[in-house]
């Protein structure tokens, strides 16, 4: 579904997975008429965009399969190389090398590291069982505290997560923010050069999420 103007400044990449409406509405709100926002699966529209968002929900196997089937992998790789890029949730996980989900799936390999399962018997320090999926508002600790995407967001700000698999990056200098769920310290956000990616849903994270999206729109890496 293409949505928005013919040549939007900001493009949400539509590769057939899930709910792009929320991200579109949230970005339109923070763009406040200063930038145009669209949803597209057209490589040329994505190429012309000033910046792009890679969303994703559901299972990684389906996401990767759709990304390949729609022929969008080359333009996604091109965008990763040359413009402000934000991956969200499974759109973040897709940037890693591989995921344990669905019996092991190769991803795009933009960031070194894996996507791992929380496990069936996750417990906190007191031995209480923790629910999986990790669903709800968790505190996030920025590591790159002066990163433009994290501007004006205090340490310990809560964002809305919903996921059963988490990112474990390999390079500490790519760690933008971390989040603890019981014994697991996950990479809640990674960033390097022009690419940032977050596990939580900024489009569903109230004022904090809108602020992060606004920061992304203003980011000049």
């Amino acid at each position, binding site marked *: *579904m293409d949505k928005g103007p013919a040549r939007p400044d900001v493009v949400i990449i539509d590769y057939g997975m*899930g*709910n792009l*409406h*929320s991200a579109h*509405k*949230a970005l339109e*709100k923070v763009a406040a008429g200063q930038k145009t926002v669209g949803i597209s699966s057209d490589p040329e529209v994505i190429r012309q965009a000033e910046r792009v968002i890679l969303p994703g*929900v*559901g*299972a990684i196997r389906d996401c990767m399969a759709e990304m390949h089937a729609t022929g969008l992998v080359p333009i996604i790789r091109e965008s990763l190389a040359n413009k402000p890029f934000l991956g969200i949730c499974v759109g973040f996980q897709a940037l890693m090398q591989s995921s344990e989900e669905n019996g092991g799936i190769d991803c795009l390999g933009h960031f070194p590291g894996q996507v791992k399962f929380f496990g*069936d018997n996750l417990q*906190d320090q007191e031995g209480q*069982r*923790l*629910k*999986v*999926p*990790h*669903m*709800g*508002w*968790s*505190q996030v600790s920025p590591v790159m505290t002066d990163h433009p995407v994290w501007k004006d967001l205090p340490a*310990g700000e*809560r964002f*809305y*997560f*919903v*996921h*059963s698999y988490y990112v474990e990056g390999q390079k500490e200098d790519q760690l933008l923010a971390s989040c*603890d*769920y*019981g014994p697991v310290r996950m990479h809640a956000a990674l960033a390097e050069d022009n690419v940032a990616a977050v596990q939580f*849903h900024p*489009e*569903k*994270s*109230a*004022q904090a*999420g*809108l602020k992060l999206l606004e920061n992304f729109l203003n980011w000049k890496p």
Partner: protein
Amino acid sequence: MGLAKRIIPCLDVDKGRVVKGVNFVGIRDAGNPVEVAKRYNDQGADEITFLDITASHEDRGTTVEMVEEIAGQVFIPLTVGGGIRNCDNIRTMLNAGADKVSINTAAVTNPEFVREAAERFGSQCIVVAIDAKKVSGEGEPDRWEIFTHGGRKPTGLDAVEWAIKMVELGAGELLLTSMDRDGTKNGFDLGVTRAISDAVAVPVIASGGVGELQHLVDGIQQGHADAVLAASIFHFGTYSIPEAKKFMADQGIEMRL
């Protein structure tokens, strides 16, 4: 510190208006759904649930328009339930801006629908609503059964076994309503809440019976729920969302304040 417990105001919507009944009769008008949802978003609600209780199919078109309007103004998760019977219904609601859908009767009549929905759209957006009623008598071990049609129709299904089955089929979250308590303001049925919450790995939302803030605390601390849902205490101004959150936080529950 980690994951906060959630407060979810629920909008029961009939023909385009928020209503609230006592045990589904004696309906009171509580306003325009878009305005009510916006108010809860601004007050700091953690999610919003929109349940379409409109009986006739013809009036359902209004729901899609309202969900679209709410989704354009509310930047927290939105669950839509009521009349979700097939994957087309789910797609329509997700395209309108819902983040999750709640499946109720259709899960009972066709459990495979839950599997199909979870495979197609992902477990993260499939909530199964469970309406349970206590069927054990005095002195017997506790037992709850699934009821449909607003609590009127028994199914003979054991509520705890049913919850486990729904999660196996792919439900990412359970919305558990005690039909004995709904609308009574006597508090959640903590027994069934705890039995189900302890039996499944996915989050459980406790619903039905909230009349005071201590009930929300009990749902989390004694019922082991991950989220608490309430309607009338918020709609009619008895308490605000910030008051409820502060009350819960003061009793040691981790909240998003």
